């Protein structure tokens, strides 16, 4: 196993031992609006969107909220969870772990009807995951930090890849991707933010093992006004592809690549985080749409973005449009965070219906059953279908807007990678995918994941 071998939080270890004992005591301490017996209870339910709504990553919160709005409309339109209506509320972590602590605790204390929480990005996951876990609140987190690769937090769920997986997939794209020969001289251009730090190590290890030349490995200061000298150095190294993320500064950087390279853009492969409206607009504005479409590729988890589950998602997202103060919620329709968190909330709701319980300790384990499916389970793709199938006495597997989920014993769902790009409107377009053996060969070269 490699250096990014995940950590096990010491407190999470203990949690397994005490959770069963603590449950009763905790619920009493909590002031218990949560019924501890069976039955779905009554009154509205709340999904907390615990994420940055201000600060450097303020654009994250709204896209999660969009997923939540769509999910709540889908659930409420089908009669709610045993008649209980679901609503969404934002809780601003300000994109930092210290402010996230009171935000999380205040959310928990003030809302006994929390059915689950979505959000918790890399900015704040390290403080809020333990808090939510000890309060037995199912969560779907958007962090790629490797410390959660083998999380033992029972209420933690992750539908996004670990950052190191993204690194491997990008190399896969460079070597086995469609529409180009295997690249031989790779440039790594990453920023100084949380996500980027974890790409570089595994990527360098894998590239060296696979005999690919690393033309240049460049760490840049995000948010700098220009990168002209950096780009001059990059061009001196004559890479034939750039692997990058550089959120916030990609436009500035790529524009200078184009200018200094005589108007010719070098192909660039982005992480799954680059499939994002802000990133798209920035780079498209900088180098022009034509060059963007001709040179950009990215990797993403296998999202289907089709089928009745996805159609339902788009329908509800359209309906949620009015909730966004005039801005267009539909810009999020091809965004994996929005789609994933939508699925997470629907699965949580179905778990509640399936267990006929609003007790989080009861329905939480059911979420994974519904995601992975048990033998003979009926496949459903919307909340309504799920409820109908459950009422008919069947067990179900939810294959939703993003497609299948496969949680492992650490509550991480990995579906393999798609090689993707974006169309002129910034929507994801799938170009192909990496085979098991291709992915495995890179992961082995990188020293495992």
């Amino acid at each position: 196993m490699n250096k990014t071998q995940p950590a096990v939080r010491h407190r999470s270890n203990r949690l397994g031992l005490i959770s069963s004992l603590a449950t009763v005591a905790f619920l009493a301490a909590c002031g218990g609006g949560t019924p501890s017996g069976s039955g779905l209870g009554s009154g509205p339910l709340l999904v907390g969107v615990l994420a940055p709504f201000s600060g450097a990553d303020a654009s994250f919160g709204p896209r999660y909220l969009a997923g939540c709005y769509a999910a709540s409309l889908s659930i409420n339109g089908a009669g709610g969870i045993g008649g209980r209506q679901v609503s969404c509320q934002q809780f601003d972590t300000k994109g930092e772990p210290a402010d996230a602590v009171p935000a999380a605790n205040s959310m928990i204390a003030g809302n006994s009807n929390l059915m689950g929480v979505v959000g918790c990005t890399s900015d704040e996951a390290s403080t809020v995951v333990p808090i939510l876990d000890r309060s037995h609140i199912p969560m779907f987190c958007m962090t790629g930090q490797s410390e959660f690769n083998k999380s033992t937090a029972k209420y933690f769920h992750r539908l996004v890849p670990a950052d190191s997986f993204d690194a491997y997939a990008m190399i896969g794209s460079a070597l086995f991707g469609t529409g180009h020969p295997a690249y031989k001289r790779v440039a790594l251009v990453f920023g100084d933010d949380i996500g980027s730090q974890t790409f570089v190590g595994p990527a360098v290890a894998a590239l060296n093992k696979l005999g690919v030349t690393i033309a240049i490995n460049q760490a840049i200061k995000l948010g700098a006004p220009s990168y002209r000298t950096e780009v001059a150095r990059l061009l001196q190294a004559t890479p034939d592809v750039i692997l990058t993320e550089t959120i916030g500064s990609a436009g500035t950087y790529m524009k200078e690549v184009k200018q200094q390279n005589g108007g010719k853009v070098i192909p660039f492969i982005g992480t799954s985080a680059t499939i994002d409206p802000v990133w798209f607009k920035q780079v498209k504005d900088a180098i022009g749409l034509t060059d963007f479409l001709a040179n950009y590729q990215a990797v993403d988890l296998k999202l289907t973005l089709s089928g009745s589950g996805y159609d339902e998602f788009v329908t509800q997202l359209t309906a949620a449009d009015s909730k966004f103060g005039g801005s267009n919620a539909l810009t999020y329709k091809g965004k994996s965070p929005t789609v994933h968190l939508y699925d997470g909330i629907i699965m949580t709701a179905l778990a509640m219906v399936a267990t006929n319980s609003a007790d989080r300790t009861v329905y939480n384990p059911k979420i994974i059953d519904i995601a992975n499916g048990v033998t003979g389970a009926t496949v459903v793709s919307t909340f309504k279908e799920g409820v109908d199938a459950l009422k008919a006495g069947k067990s179900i597997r939810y294959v939703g807007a993003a497609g299948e989920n496969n949680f492992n014993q650490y509550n991480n769902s990995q579906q393999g990678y798609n090689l993707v790009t974006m169309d002129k409107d910034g929507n994801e377009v799938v170009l192909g995918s990496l085979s098991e053996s291709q992915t495995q060969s890179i992961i082995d070269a990188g020293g495992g994941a």
Partner: protein
Amino acid sequence: MNTYYAATLLVYAGVDIIACLALNLQFGISGIVNFSFIVFQAVGAYTAAVLSMPPDTANGAYQVYVGGWQLPFPIPWLGGALAGGLLAIPVGLVVLRKLRSDYQAISLLVLSVIVNSVITNVRPFLNGAAGIAQVPGPFSDQIDPLSDTYQLFYVGLTVPCVLLVWLVASRIVNSPFGRSLRAMREHELAATAIGKNPVELKMTIFIVGGVIAGLSGAILVGYIEVWAPSVWLYPETIILFAAVIVGGRGNNVGAILGALLVPVGFFEVTRRLPTTFGGWTPPPNLIPAMEWVAIGLLIIGFLWFRPEGVRPEPRRVFDGAPIREEPSSAAIS
């Protein structure tokens, strides 16, 4: 209200009170505008963290940092306080000796940004932007940190620190040294003329403030178990300034009141604001942005309508001294 939430509020209030008392000593009593205050809290937090953590090869080595000595309580807290004081020496020597007051302020502001940028980019030092996680709190190996008991225990550790810092701050304010500081704040030239050495006075209080700020960081990091560059961006300092201005500059009780009103009270209240208003949902980023506008307005409003704050600094008049108007402070000339 559950135990965790109550404990969080109390610990945060304690940390903010300690920080505001330190800032009040520097800004309220001595007139030093320490716009890099949060850096001193951060250095205390980082120091306490690396003193109490295992070496970075632990936990699967997913983070890198210096130190990792696993020292028992109270060494990490004392170390954090010490680090805050030690950092104050070079910073004070650069900034406080010759520069004019407003110039000191912007130099410290720039410094705050530089230090944050360095820590973010030099990853092997303190794990860069991701920061360090899984910092063991005091006695977390003996009391389960997930338990109610531990939450209350942590409040129990914080409260004596608050009282100690308050005691120290009160002693300083009411001592001859405190009078010298106020004299310097009101009229540096006059204070110099009666034999006070302003550089020495400023350096002393800068170091004292650094020690207290370092302690506040150590307490906070033990509780939240994480520290990262995003926690100590310079706007955090502005919030503390707003607290001291609102509470009452130069008055320790005012500083405490300010800590309770602004960093704790204001943000707890805004957390509880509704996010829909009669069917209208504002754009998701609007309310957080308006919180900052409100903080700005709060500062300007107080400085205009009530510059002395909620609890003004008491006017100290000696028996027999002629009553006169206070000199207008450092008039622009």
